[in-house]
């Protein structure tokens, strides 16, 4: 399921039982595994609650979009950029939908956003299970790994594009846009893609800076 068609379907929905209470997991390092399991459960519930769109339809629509971009732009690099831009604009708007629907606990730090994105958001919007890996020691970078990608279900990359096109780059854009709305300016990029022959999909998210507005504490005039 890609975000765009799913959005439209959700928009047509009026009444929804959103009164379900989800226990808020406590984020302690000791309970990290339990936390991940709880988040997976939240993701699963959000996925079940949401209205679903046929994944083949979404995959084909997305494929047509990428194909058209490939025709319109000379270089696959530009196609990557366009996909990222499309995703960014989706992310800016989609984050409110996520916050309103997911019942996910609030992120207290950038590193905490990793599990939320992987366990809840990926499950909720793409229906796949993702996990977090390669967290940098200072918590400013992490990778999201996922095995199946519904967007690329039927795609094969032609030989000349294998080294340059990131087919599902729209997901990177969505992550970038969504995190920017909650005050984290990040870079997101694909590191590995099954379409290119890698063994799994990997998205690397790195923090550029926090956007929190702060008034200077000293009296500078």
């Amino acid at each position: 399921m890609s975000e765009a068609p799913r959005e439209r379907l959700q928009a047509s929905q009026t009444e929804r039982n959103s009164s379900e209470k989800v226990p808020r997991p406590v984020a302690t390092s000791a309970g990290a595994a339990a936390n991940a399991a709880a988040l997976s459960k939240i993701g699963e519930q959000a996925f079940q609650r949401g209205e679903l769109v046929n994944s083949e339809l979404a995959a084909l629509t997305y494929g047509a979009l990428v194909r058209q971009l490939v025709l319109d732009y000379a270089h696959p690099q530009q196609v990557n950029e366009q996909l990222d831009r499309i995703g960014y604009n989706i992310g800016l708007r989609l984050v409110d939908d996520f916050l309103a629907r997911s019942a996910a606990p609030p992120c207290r730090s950038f590193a905490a956003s990793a599990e939320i994105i992987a366990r809840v958001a990926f499950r909720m919007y793409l229906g796949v299970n993702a996990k977090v890996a390669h967290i940098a020691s200072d918590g400013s970078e992490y990778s999201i790994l996922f095995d199946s990608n519904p967007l690329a279900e039927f795609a094969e990359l032609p030989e000349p594009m294998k080294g340059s096109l990131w087919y599902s780059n729209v997901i990177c854009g969505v992550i970038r846009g969504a995190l920017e709305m909650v005050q984290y300016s990040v870079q997101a990029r694909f590191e590995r893609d099954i379409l290119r022959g890698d063994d799994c999909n990997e998205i690397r998210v790195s923090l550029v800076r926090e956007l929190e507005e702060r008034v200077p504490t000293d009296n500078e005039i």
Partner: protein
Amino acid sequence: MPIYLVFVVNRSGGLIYHAQFHGAQVHPLNECLRLASTLHGIQQISRQVSPVENADDIGLVGLEARTFRLRVYQPPTGVQFVVLATPDMPDEVLLGILRRLHLLYADYALKNPFYVQDMPIRCRLFDIHFAKLMKPHIVGPLE
């Protein structure tokens, strides 16, 4: 126990949606704009004077007076949903309404490709569903 007034205030303090209902003093639009940006200012101040760092719900949450109760809901994206009601209205009900309003905002404003973020909400579907949401809680529409 009716609701008097509903505001949606954007990240920079601009009023993007407002509705006033029967039973309250009517404010002209300019005054609404001023009230919304004042509220936004108070919200920012209350966040800065908060003695607790990095807690979940810092900032202004509500205001209680003898004649009204004001409830604010602010998701992490910074947009504020504000409702003004009679004091006998339970807090959970008001929060529930504001959460539903957030859902409507996500569904019918943000997902509308012709809606520009942070601009006044002029979406017919949003109006329709907003009216549905408010119906059980108001005496009668004013505008």
